[in-house]
């Protein structure tokens, strides 16, 4: 319940961020740089690999059953709807979520949080909200890049093994993907981003006195975060098919 209250407190402070955006804009920019931009190479490699494998395997197997056209549907289901958002979320959590927990935990140990409160600055408003927005926005953008690399980049990998005209590939792909798929994947990435930011900052603030609590809370945040991501993914997938 405390965590739910914490989440709503973050949501309550978000409008204030846009009103006083100068103070937290730098934090938001740096958060997006570390969470979004720096995770891009990893995301690109994973997406290219995944898309390439699907295309190569699909093009070698499906035409044998006369179902070559299904390759586009499989690509959309696997990359756009299912694996894209969850894989991007895992990477972001592993890279940035743990970093956020450690950073806030260290700030608690060094009594910086108390200093913020003493000077009248709300730590949630100044520390958490920019990170929340940064991680959520980065998550959505990384998901877009994952889809671009996975769906279009895989085409170039497939060319090495089985040449296919791009016009045919693009037409088949855009025929298979629907607006609901795009909405689903973006909604998933937004919710995953919010989850990652909330869980990692929450466990950062749970550090109390000793520096030894930081790794303990980081590990806890990873366990809880991954579980919540998988559960959220299941629920959202279920909602999509209802």
């Amino acid at each position: 319940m405390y965590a739910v209250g914490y989440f709503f407190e973050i949501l309550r402070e978000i409008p204030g961020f846009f009103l006083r955006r100068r103070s937290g804009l730098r934090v938001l920019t740096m958060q997006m740089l570390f969470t979004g931009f720096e995770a891009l190479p990893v995301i690109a490699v994973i997406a290219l690999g995944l898309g390439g494998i699907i295309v190569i395997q699909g093009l070698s197997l499906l035409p044998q059953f006369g179902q070559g056209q299904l390759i586009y549907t499989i690509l959309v289901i696997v990359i756009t709807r299912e694996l894209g958002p969850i894989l991007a979320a895992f990477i972001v959590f592993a890279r940035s979520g743990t970093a956020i927990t450690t950073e806030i935990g260290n700030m608690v140990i060094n009594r910086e949080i108390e200093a913020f409160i003493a000077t009248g600055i709300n730590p949630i408003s100044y520390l958490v909200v920019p990170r929340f927005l940064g991680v959520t926005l980065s998550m959505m953008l990384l998901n877009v890049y994952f889809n671009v690399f996975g769906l279009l980049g895989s085409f170039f990998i497939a060319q090495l093994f089985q040449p296919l005209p791009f016009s045919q590939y693009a037409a088949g792909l855009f025929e298979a993907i629907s607006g609901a798929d795009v909405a689903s994947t973006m909604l998933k990435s937004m919710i995953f981003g919010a989850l990652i930011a909330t869980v990692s900052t929450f466990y950062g603030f749970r550090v109390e006195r000793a520096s030894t609590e930081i790794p303990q809370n980081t590990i806890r945040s990873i366990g809880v975060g991954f579980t919540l991501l998988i559960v959220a993914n299941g629920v959202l997938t279920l909602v999509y098919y209802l």
Partner: protein
Amino acid sequence: MKFKIRFARQIVGVFVILGFGLLLMIIVMIGSNQRWFARNYEYVSEFQSASGISQGMSITFRGFQIGTVTSIELTEHNVVAVRFNIFDTYIDKVTENSVMQLVSHPLGFGGGMVLHQGRRRTDPLPEGSLIPSINSGLGRSLVAQDLVALPEEPDQIEELLSLLDPILRNIDAVTQEAEQLLAEVNAVLAGSSQGPLAETVAAVNAVLLELEVAVADIGKIAGNIEATTAEMRDPTGLVPRLLGAEGSIARILDDDEELYREIEKILASVQAALEDVQQMTEYLVSTTPQISGILEESRQAIDTGQEVLMGVRNNPLIRGGVPERLEQPTTFQGFRDEEF
């Protein structure tokens, strides 16, 4: 300051703009491919049965898809009302006196809903208008008055032949491939091709050449045998010289018992040697108990020696008193032991 930190705002700006740009592009591409931004005009038609009609079924005109069925419902008058969209690019085809026809292929190769245009060139019908089905009373009346531009009914046999045409083309393609295969086999057999089969044929050729050489060798051997046989037949040859009355074998057999005597001498010597061996064996047998006694005494002496050594080792006064012998490596080394 690191480049990334210094230009963080610019980098993040490009990252965000490019990301949203790509998202927008994907949405536009999907939309344009699935006609999100195109205007569709809705019309309705009535049928006696919904059998064969499905939501999303395409509406065609002269083989082109010009729209899709959006909904099917049963009215209170037990008539099936079919609502469908016509794409804006084909709206001029929906003229007055147009009728709809549900077609299904006689051989079960699918079907669809077809628009038959009215003969009069008029403005498109207003959106939401009823376009009668060809089997309804109004539709039949329009057809009877020749107000509908119906395509000529295709002959069933002609249609069947048109279905046979691709099959025949496939057979033709297969025949051509078979011809190519035969040409390839001919090329392989002629030795003017490459590949595993050509390599096999070349190997078989090499084996045949080797076989030819072997046959030539066998021919030579046969010639030699023939020559030998001829020599055997020759009365002045080797065989008569060996087997003849004055030959070597005849001489061995008729040597005035010289050979026999030699063999007898050898046998006598062998018998003498055997007697010596027998005597030696008898001596060994007679001395075996003594040797056994010596061996037994030696064993008992070794056991006693072991006990004495054990006693000396267990003696607390001198235990450990004998220094361990350290192996002193020799300082002499031959040239062979040196490592180069």
